[in-house]
């Protein structure tokens, strides 16, 4: 947890009109605070946690370690939850985490068609598109069309594996390590791992295009 003082702009001084929903959310908070059941700072703390500490930077650390350390990668693929816990990540929506590996012929994509299941400890809260009806409806039924919307065109012979997180298992994609990064340190590799590459709607790419042979 960082200890800087973020704005407590959530209950006071509204420069713009509040929507009914925003007002309802504030009313619920006021009610729970008034009853002495929930404290303002506990809400602030959870907000802060997901804004600062729990996010795709954690997953990127896991992926970079797997790229840099073959023994770690082996442990990660054998028992995702335990290997992820080695780096200090775990908790809500990460009770059982399974890591699926992209290889030259196989590309994995994660979805939750029923709601929005997502491995919070390593990816944080899901982006709006992940929770949207179009993604939930379409990625199981036309994955290539959906990936094309993200600018990802896979070779026709690549096997696409779409993981629908229907139970309590949470999935994380281990993207392929970009070519030309053999000399990169683990810390440098972290910067190549985007959130979307760990969901499977992108691949990890090195900033410099690799020269065409």
């Amino acid at each position, binding site marked *: 947890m960082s200890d800087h003082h973020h704005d407590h702009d959530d209950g006071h001084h509204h420069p713009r009109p509040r929507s009914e929903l*925003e007002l309802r959310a504030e009313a619920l908070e006021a009610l729970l605070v008034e009853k002495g059941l929930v404290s303002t700072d506990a809400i602030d703390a959870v907000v802060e946690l997901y804004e600062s500490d729990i996010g795709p930077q954690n997953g990127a650390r896991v992926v970079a370690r797997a790229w840099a350390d073959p023994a770690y990668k082996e442990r990660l693929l054998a028992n995702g939850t335990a290997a992820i816990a080695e780096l200090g990540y775990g908790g809500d929506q990460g009770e*059982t985490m399974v890591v699926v590996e992209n290889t030259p012929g196989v590309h994995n994509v994660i979805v939750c068609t029923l709601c929005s299941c997502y491995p919070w400890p390593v990816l944080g809260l899901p982006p709006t598109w992940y929770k949207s009806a179009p993604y939930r409806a379409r990625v199981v039924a036309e994955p290539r069309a959906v990936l094309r919307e993200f600018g990802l065109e896979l070779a026709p012979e690549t096997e696409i594996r779409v993981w629908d997180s229907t139970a309590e298992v949470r999935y994380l994609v281990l993207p392929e390590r970009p070519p030309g990064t053999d000399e990169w340190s683990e810390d440098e590799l972290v910067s190549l791992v985007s959130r979307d590459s760990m969901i499977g709607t992108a691949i990890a790419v090195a900033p410099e295009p690799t020269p065409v042979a």
Partner: protein
Amino acid sequence: MGGMHGFGPVVVPGCELAYHERWELRVFAMSTIVGHERLGSGSGRAIREEMPPEEYLRASYYERWLWSTERRLLRKGTIAPGEVDAWMARLRSAEDPPRRIDPDQSRRVVGAVTRPDPPLAPAADPRFVVGDRVTVRRMRPAGHTRCPRYVRGATGGVEHVQGMDAFPDIGPYQGPAEPLYSVAFASEHLFGPSEDGSWTVLLDLFESYLEAV
């Protein structure tokens, strides 16, 4: 909603963000605290599905969370009907919402969010083994289920025995523990032939959903 048509593009402006307004994150935080502090009753996920379908589709993501959080609190008797509306009226008339500081609750909740829970226990007496062909039962459950419609009646192969978990359809999430399987389906068996080739869809399915082929 897996497989449905008509929802339009996935990638739209703003879709990269996890939330768009501060109140959404505070609703998320309240829901988290309500869960860990046992202030509510029932599963948020299952309650969100009780929204009338046309309302569910129209509602924004955190609107659904606000809806379910309120209902969990009402069901437990933590709040009474009308209390949120009463606070909305007070806020509308420019009353300042109360603030309360409780560092113990903050510490407790942050600890609970980041504390790894035990992963799924190994499956006891699984009826199926890796490699078995299984067909998903035809059914029409009235309440919460983790068996999407698009997979019912389809035949696939058991890829992995994930472990033991509470059957989600009863309770919900109060059913007896039973084996959970990762089952792989060829896209043709779910959606018929596609101009975009073939792919694999994998779901985590409870033993009660499955029949031997």
